[in-house]
Structure formats: C-alpha cells, structure tokens
C-alpha cells in the first residue's frame, strides 16, 4: 500500500474534525472532534512508522520504527489525561450556566 493512501485518509479524518469544531456548538461534540483529530494523527504516525520499517533508514537504528509507535502510545496517555480534565471543566460549566452551547460560554466571568 502506498503511503499516500494513508496520508489522504488521515487528512480526511483530520479535516472532518476541523469542520466539526467549526460547525458544531455543543461543547462535548467539539471535544469529541478534537479526539478525532488526535486519532487521525496517530494513524498517520503508525503508517509512517511502518513506512520507515521497510525503507533504508531502518538500518540507521534498530528501534527506528517502534519509536513512532511509542510516540502514539504517549499521545494516547496525554489524551486520556486531557479528557478527564476537560470533561470536568465542561461539567463545572454546565453546573454554573446550565448549558453546554459554546455561544453562551463566550465570557470568562459570570
């Protein structure tokens, strides 16, 4: 499989995430679109890792290809921590304002 196929797929998923962030106004759905963008980047990193596994650069270092997959692992770690804090913030905003519509959440005070 050509690497371009994976680039196009990840780019499409990433763009759908961007469109979701721009179009939707529910804060939870916006947050889910951010997760989708993170996953698109993860997929591209794994594809590049497997691309380097059969290219000439794999001879430079024995752990060249699995480094990228460890980066993906750390991205997942950070995403899990980010989701817990972000959802706590959304729950707190809902408790104060009684809405998750970002059009009503445009002020930092009150």
């Amino acid at each position, binding site marked *: *499989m050509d690497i371009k196929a994976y680039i196009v797929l990840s780019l499409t998923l990433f*763009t759908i995430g961007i*469109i979701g962030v721009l179009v939707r106004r529910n804060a939870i759905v916006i947050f889910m679109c951010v997760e989708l963008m993170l996953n698109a980047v993860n*997929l591209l990193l794994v594809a590049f*890792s*497997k691309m380097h596994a*059969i290219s000439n650069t794999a001879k430079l270092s024995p752990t060249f290809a*699995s480094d990228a997959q460890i980066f993906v*692992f750390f991205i997942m770690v950070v995403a899990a921590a980010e989701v817990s804090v972000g959802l706590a913030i959304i*729950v707190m905003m809902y408790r104060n304002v009684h809405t998750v519509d970002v059009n009503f959440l445009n002020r930092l005070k009150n």
Partner: protein
Amino acid sequence: MNITTLVFILLSVMAVGSAAMMIASKSPVHSVLWLIVVFFAISGHYILLNAQFLAIVNIIVYAGAIMVLFLFVVMLMNLNAETEPIKNYRLQLIGIISGGTLLLIILSAIMKIDVEQLVEMKTGNEGLIKSLGLNLFKNYVLPFEISSVLFLSAMIGAVVIGKKDEAVENKK
C-alpha cells in the same frame, strides 16, 4: 485488487463515513456512538499495519474508557434531546468551506509528490508487544514515569474542578 487493498478501502470508508455521521447527527449520544465506530475502524487499520499493541490499547483506552466517560457526561447532563437548535446556516457553510479548502490545498500538495513510498502491511515485528516493551523500558523509561505524574495531576485536577464550590454555594 488483492484482499489487503479491499480491507483498507472498507475500513477507510467505515472511518470516514462514521466521522461524517458523527458531526452530522443531532443527538450527542449518537455522536458518541458514531465516534466509537470510528475508533474501531482505526483499530482495524492498526491491525492491518501489524501494530497489534496499539490496536488493543486503542480499543481499551479510547473506545472503552474515554468514550464511556463521554457517554456518562452526556447522560448526566440529559442532553439526549435535540438541544442544539440550528440557527446560523451561514456560519456552518463558512466552516465547511474553510475546512474543505484546507483539505483541497494539502491534497493538491501531496498529489504533486511522485515518489512511490510503500508501507509494510501485515508483517514486521515493530508493533508487537515484545519490541515495543523493550524499547519503552530501555529508552523511554523517564517519559513513562513522568506520565504517571501527569495522570496523578489530571486526577487531582478533575476532582478539584468537579467538586462543588462551597463558598459560591453559601453566597447564593
């Protein structure tokens, strides 16, 4: 067309279609369920690339833990009705146009590259648990341990933020 290409196209259509359904569906619960379908499709891609550890972790962490957390929050807020009245079609159109423009620009830049660079499918032991674990605990021990501090701070932060503020409650 061999079976690998067929599976790739099937999983790609599944991922992109479910992602489109995610941002198109009105109910947030349906959005969460469609996003779980996207994560399963991406896990299928990982298996196709022989990144078995990441496929399992993707299912357990994303589809299992994170999306259940989202589902809990959505149900906690009782958002299952159509809580998002569509008012501004113009802003939606602008969002779709700007996103599509980004897609077209990067796509046209990528299509100009005529270097054939292949991806290793279904073989290779880079994504297996043995090589990943050896690399993680030999070269990346420090980031691995620091991530535990990150989790601890995220846990404390979530509890502190989610706690009811008693000073504000008393003032009311």
